């Protein structure tokens, strides 16, 4: 695929007249979509923000939002909500830095029993008004399909107005390019200092990449809500890797450094005091692994320990979609699929998972995607999803929650199954029932990865990798980045050519031990969630290492010997 080259961009606001009276505006916003990227110079004392022009005025965004809502109501919408935002992303890798500029909106309307969503990237008054009218017209055209199907009312929520700023100490766009590059270059290579010994003997290196995302997002609804949030998240990754750079050959080994994670914040997250120490530890660990002899896998069933990274991938790929109420209710059987946790009225309050599994929405201010309100204008929540293996909540929205609570008999009001405030939407995309961050509780007693391996006895240890699943989430494939044979609690050999094939319903309850906080890792995942049309969301999953039983070991894609 040809990479897009740099496209410089400056934003303007289109001059308007009547409806925008009293608001000083400049020339129109330029077109903006994915991959509008500015390649920054590799050296400069200027701050990053000086290369890309001023941030859009929040008052302007609010005005655009209210204009669109009014247009939708005027066109005949019974209800409407809108998310619009102006986003800039700074990505650095080594000495290279890019800024991506985007803006977008998503507008939902309900008209006479039909719901429509329109999305776009042009934040001008004319476009938003046209989008509102188009959405109402489309919804009207769907009325013939409603018949006697009355649209279930949305779950009631309080009207909210306000403004919120994500915790940020140092604005990454106010930092000079030289300082950003210095971070990357100091991580990369490291032929001086603690890693020089490693670099000479084992070809170990570090590589870090950082992606800051700052967004001014406005939510407005026909019920009167109007909130502005100034968000700032960072996706940080540091890899310890080993490869024979001189000969340009050999196996590639890499492990993520657990302390460098996706979170909310600014440039201050770069200067974590333990970052280098943990990175060195990880690199030494990697080189020990690399020294192990190599063996091919054997088909069969084994007990396995998944490190925090792979475990987080598994939870995010299998458990989270299953907890989507939209899927559990069967609304997505023709598109995204079903859920292993269906039907919700039966599964709620039942133990499906291992008793040591507790999973909750992460509500800490430093979590990835931190926000005061979700993308339906509901205050964000931190309810548990799974408590000691029991399903306590589903990921629900204002549209789906009434279906869950409507049929509940009296006496079942335990507080469970009434969670809102988790809906998220990427810029200019459909909102979906997927929180920005979830955390699986780690063991309260000390239990390192080595101790888990000792508990395992004989089996496999899997580190890193990805997980894939079928549309209904019943089966999953795990592709470990590195796989090791464990005998009597000790790593003996590296294993290649294998992946895991599991049945989610039978596999997840076999979790018998988890690691402590030292084994926790956070992964940032993009999941192509349901949506009409399809939309992808990004969320962070944190999980400790876990010991599972009876995993099918099957062939992976053929590797070069």
């Amino acid at each position: 695929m040809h990479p897009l080259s740099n496209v410089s961009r400056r934003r303007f606001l289109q001059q308007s007249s009547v409806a925008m009276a009293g608001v000083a505006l400049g020339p129109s916003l330029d077109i903006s979509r994915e991959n509008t990227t500015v390649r920054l110079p590799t050296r400069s004392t200027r701050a990053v923000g000086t290369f890309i022009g001023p941030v859009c005025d929040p008052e302007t965004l609010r005005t655009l939002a209210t204009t669109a809502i009014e247009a939708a109501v005027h066109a005949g919408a019974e209800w409407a909500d809108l998310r619009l935002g102006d986003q800039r992303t700074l990505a650095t890798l080594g000495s290279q830095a890019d800024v991506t500029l985007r803006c977008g909106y998503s507008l939902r309307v309900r008209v006479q029993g039909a719901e429509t969503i329109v999305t776009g990237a042009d934040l001008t008054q004319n476009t938003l008004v046209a989008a509102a009218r188009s959405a109402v017209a489309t919804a009207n055209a769907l009325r013939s399909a409603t018949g006697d199907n009355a649209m279930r009312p949305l779950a009631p929520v309080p009207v909210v107005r306000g403004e919120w700023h994500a915790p940020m100490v140092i604005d990454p766009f106010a930092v000079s390019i030289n300082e950003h590059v210095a971070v990357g270059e100091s991580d990369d290579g490291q032929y001086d200092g603690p890693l020089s010994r490693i670099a000479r003997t084992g070809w170990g290196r570090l590589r870090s990449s950082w992606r800051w995302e700052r967004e001014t997002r406005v939510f407005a609804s026909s019920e009167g809500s109007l909130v502005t949030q100034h968000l700032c998240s960072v996706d940080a990754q540091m890899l310890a890797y080993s490869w024979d750079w001189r000969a340009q050959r050999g196996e590639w080994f890499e492990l993520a450094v657990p302390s460098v994670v996706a979170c909310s914040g600014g440039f201050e997250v770069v200067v974590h005091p333990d970052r280098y120490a943990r990175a060195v530890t990880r690199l030494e660990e990697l080189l020990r692994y690399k020294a192990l002899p190599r063996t091919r896998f054997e088909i069969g069933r084994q007990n396995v320990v998944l490190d925090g990274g792979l475990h987080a991938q598994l939870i995010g790929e299998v458990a989270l979609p299953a907890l989507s109420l939209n899927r559990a209710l069967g609304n997505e059987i023709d598109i995204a699929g079903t859920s292993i946790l269906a039907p919700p009225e039966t599964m709620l309050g039942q133990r499906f998972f291992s008793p040591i599994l507790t999973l909750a929405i992460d509500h800490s201010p430093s979590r990835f995607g931190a926000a005061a309100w979700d993308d339906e204008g509901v205050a964000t929540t931190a309810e548990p999803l799974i408590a000691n293996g029991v399903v306590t909540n589903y990921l629900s929205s204002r549209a789906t929650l009434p279906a869950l609570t409507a049929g509940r008999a009296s006496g079942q009001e335990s507080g469970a199954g009434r969670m809102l405030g988790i809906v998220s939407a990427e810029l200019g995309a459909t909102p979906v029932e997927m929180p920005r961050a979830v955390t699986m509780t780690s063991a309260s007693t000390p239990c390192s990865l080595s101790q888990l391996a000792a508990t395992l006895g004989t089996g496999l240890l899997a580190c890193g990798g990805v997980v894939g699943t079928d549309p209904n989430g019943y089966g999953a494939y795990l592709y470990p980045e590195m796989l090791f044979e464990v005998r009597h609690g000790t790593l003996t050999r590296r294993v290649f050519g294998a992946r895991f094939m599991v049945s989610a319903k039978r596999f997840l309850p076999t979790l018998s031990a988890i690691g402590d906080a030292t084994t926790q890792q956070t992964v940032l995942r993009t999941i192509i969630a349901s949506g009409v049309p399809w939309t992808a969301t990004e969320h962070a999953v944190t999980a400790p290492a876990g010991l599972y039983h009876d995993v099918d070991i099957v062939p992976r894609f053929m590797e070069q010997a």
Partner: protein
Amino acid sequence: MTLNVHIDRHVGDAIASSPTISRRQLLREFLARRASGDYPLSDHTTAPASDESRIVPDPSAPRRVITHDEAMALAEFVREVTEGKFTGVAIAHAVTAVATQRVGNAPRSGDADELELRWPTRLGNMVNVGISTNVRDPDTLRRVIHRAAATKAPPMTGPLAEEDPDLADAPRPATYMPVSLWYPSTSTAMTTERGTALAQLTAPFHGTAWHGVGTVAMSAKAFLYLSPDGSTTAWGDATDAEVSMTARAADGSAAGWSGRAHRDWRQLHPADVAQAAIAAAEQQRNPSRAEPGRYTAILSATAVGQLLHAMAGSFNVARQSPFNLPTTKEVGQKDRRGERLFDPRVTLSSDPTDPDGGDWPFFYGDGGMGEPNPKSIWVEHGVLKLRSVDVGTGLQYGMIPRKDPLAMRMNGGPTSVAEMIANCERGIYVHRFANLEVIDGLSGAMSGYTRDGCLFIQNGKIVRPVKDFRIFESPFLSLNRVLALGTPERIAFGFTPPNPYRREQHWPLPPVIAPPLMVSDFNFAALADNV
């Protein structure tokens, strides 16, 4: 620069190699061959004058995707505004309209509209300058284009950084084969028919105990490429539509799916789709488990189409593939073309003019810039004839570029599904698959799941429904164990999720026309829990 290259000539020509030939000479020869190829005249050869007023779309027009005149005006505008050396302007517009409804619930719909302008500045070093927009305001476009053209390219090193003047000036034929991919009925239906179609899908479910969710999806696309001097244009527009329905028992114990796809909306009958889904679900009531193992498999047309779609990438010369010999280490080296690799009854082809589906007559999407895509017979009577190759690799190795056979037709046979079942002593009928993926490029082995249950066949009759399986099989081997073929039909894939790595595999997927198939010894490797 002098390179050692192999000149790969296609069917009927001898494989030849030239130990020393200049790249410039090779390219001239290749371009001359391509220009004299099977490309009948089209009528899009003139470039109208740029007209800024025609850039902005007419909001009252019923057609939602850019017209030829609008695209030409936009392309001319971009060409005039853009400074510096480039190899043409490509404009791609895609509009999608989707609606879904669960029986008993209100419908939901969503639309997507993407207009993209792209022009490569230096084809040799793989740098593309492009913008993705849905704004066609001339002043805004002019500002953005100027900035895009003035932006410095990222630093590149090595041979690819050299600007190859021959590639940058590589002409394209002035003509493309005529195809019929656009149906006004579908374009109109995007605005007016979704509600009616959903009502037709859900109506058969009233009074039944089945849960049902139906989806109506429509697409309109347009593409135009304009050469630097305005002498060549590639223009095409296409519509496509798909209707699908899933019926499912309340307890999740049984399910059935049906789908239809056609470029012409008038050929789709949602009520029939709904009835078929209910009938399929009825057959799957109270499924039991069957012992995993190798069985004779009767694969529905949908299941066969899914396998063919998963096989398509293996035809590419640059991929690890069962079509390579153990000695095939590089593109251009001898592979298994000319060998009989499948049953003699198997023929696989791609024809942009196929009346049941068709495809763009040029490369579109995935960086394609209107390079012609010819008809191709990949496998003829079981013999491998052709491999696919992308434009860059084709130019480099002197091969005619051919798109991967994502749009494919497999020939059929005289046997109906009922006859296949009657002739089956012990086997399994598969409705469709899920999560097919190639896990071994050398053998083409795939893994995946069956979906919506299967039917167990014994002594010529369906005896009971059974639950799903994991499968582990290579269609490259299965197509050697063909027992019978049925009547081909265009299959529906459903409203599939996008492939983040290949835009060509965003919905709608290129048409696949496949027959139902009966094969022996299909590996139903293990049981699965899904329904």
